[in-house]
């Protein structure tokens, strides 16, 4: 059972109130991009055993999208944060470092 804190309405929402939105911080490549960039934007995803960043929507709730950092192996949640960002904020990265020293995810560390 996954429980995520929704940063928009302040509710600790249980999994069935949420809908998953896949990997977080995917950078869009559109017109002018190379075929490889566009292919990776569409299909290439991380599949980590450990620290991962995801998008979630509080669908049966306030309706807002937000981000979550969690461990895919233990289901431990490191924190949730605003959707209005293109990268994990410092306090989230620090919270992960405190529990998983030396972690990396894509080019983030």
């Amino acid at each position: 059972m996954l429980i995520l804190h929704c940063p928009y309405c302040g509710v600790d929402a249980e999994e069935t109130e949420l809908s998953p939105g896949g990997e977080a911080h995917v950078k869009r490549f559109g017109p002018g991009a190379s075929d490889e960039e566009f292919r990776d934007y569409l299909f290439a995803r991380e599949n980590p055993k450990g620290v991962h960043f995801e998008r979630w929507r509080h669908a049966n709730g306030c309706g807002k999208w937000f981000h979550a950092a969690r461990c895919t192996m233990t289901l431990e949640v490191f924190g949730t944060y605003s959707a209005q960002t293109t990268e994990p904020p410092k306090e989230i990265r620090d919270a992960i470092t405190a529990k998983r020293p030396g972690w990396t995810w894509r080019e983030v560390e």
Partner: protein
Amino acid sequence: MSEPITAPITALGGARHDGLARIEEVGLHGMITLRGDLASKAVKAAVMAATGAKLPGQRGVVRGKSGTAIWMSPDELLLCPYAEVDATLGKVTAALGTAHALAVDVSDARAMLTVSGPAAREVLAKLCPVDFAPGAFGPGMVRRTRMAQVPAAIWMEQDESFRVICFRSVARYVFDLLGVAAQPGSGVGVY
């Protein structure tokens, strides 16, 4: 030939069920969705114009002289005027002026029920992933959540009865669901 419907009717015709809790459809009730910048003067003025209430805080419900204002999300409120939705919507639109906001009459798209009685908290807790314990949920609070398979908004009045709003198309489902959860003999006794 069937007669055309000329006056609005509720989804369940005022249905009522008595069990561990009393479940009752509220009669025709105005509901206006208001979306906009909740920190703006225009939205505050619109809330006051429609309900006579102050702007509710996060997950708050505020009762005014002429209606209730309910916090739905960081940029959405539900205004429930007691009467005259059309006239109230006119006041809201006038108060919003040129502000970037949206106000729509959704009364006929929703159904409203009350769940009351000593076991009301428990009946709802059977259906929603929400802590309805007396210390955790009380009057003046609202929670949007999942009730079995459909979304619902639930808040508590001062007399500790609950109000439940769901989409009109699932009103019968929600009513029956609550009826089953309130079946005599099925009390859990957690709260």
